[in-house]
């Protein structure tokens, strides 16, 4: 399990390959399915950049707990969570998760679970910086509702 909360940009491809290589090793030979999700800054409504604030200390704890719960629930081969904070511009990768399991159903479900909980239970707050000024992104009811399926 690797969890990183960082301001720096990361290379999603290099992360995917490192994660896959770990799973392909002898110890993790039981892995047949890897699902990844990455989130990008959309250039909606002329949005130029985004500022992501977080709660140092709690962020890592909250993500670790989410990832550990996923591991218990789906017996995953491995889990990866990377989430950036600070200033990001349109097209940049905000975050990614990866889940490895024996079969695809578990890997898909675990990745969706990680995403649903990261959205609403990890202490990050997005502020959009557009031509009209800055606005905090409002939490969506749909994201809160998404937790009910788990």
């Amino acid at each position, binding site marked *: 399990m690797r969890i990183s909360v960082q301001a720096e940009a990361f290379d999603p491809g290099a992360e995917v390959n490192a994660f896959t290589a770990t799973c392909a090793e002898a110890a993790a030979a039981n892995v047949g399915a890897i699902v990844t999700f990455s*989130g990008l800054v959309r250039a909606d409504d002329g949005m130029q950049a985004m500022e992501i*604030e*977080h*709660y140092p*200390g*709690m962020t890592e*704890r*909250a993500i670790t707990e989410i990832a550990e719960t996923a591991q218990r629930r789906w017996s995953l081969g491995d889990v990866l969570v990377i*989430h950036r904070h600070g200033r990001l511009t349109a097209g940049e990768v*905000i*975050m990614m998760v990866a889940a490895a399991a024996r079969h695809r159903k578990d890997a898909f479900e675990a990745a969706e679970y990680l*995403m649903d909980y*990261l*959205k*609403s*239970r*990890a*202490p*990050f*707050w*997005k*502020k959009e910086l557009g031509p009209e000024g800055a606005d*905090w*992104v*409002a*939490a969506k009811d749909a994201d*809160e509702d998404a937790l009910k399926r788990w």
Partner: protein
Amino acid sequence: MEVLYFAWVRERIGIPKERVESSAATVNDLIAELKAREPRYEAAFADLSALRVALNQELSEFDAPLAGVREVAFFPPMTGG
């Protein structure tokens, strides 16, 4: 105890954190004390349904007791991912 503010709560109150001496029994009591201080606290805590609270870095409830709590954080619903 240490009280932290994030996102628009931080912006309304104007500081990211402060040390608060309080004998409030619950989070609700602490909020009442803060609101009585100045209009900027009144503004920040006007609508509790738009706020979340964490005690010692764990999400909690507004009626939770503050005994043993060193760090309280107030913030809007989270928007990660």
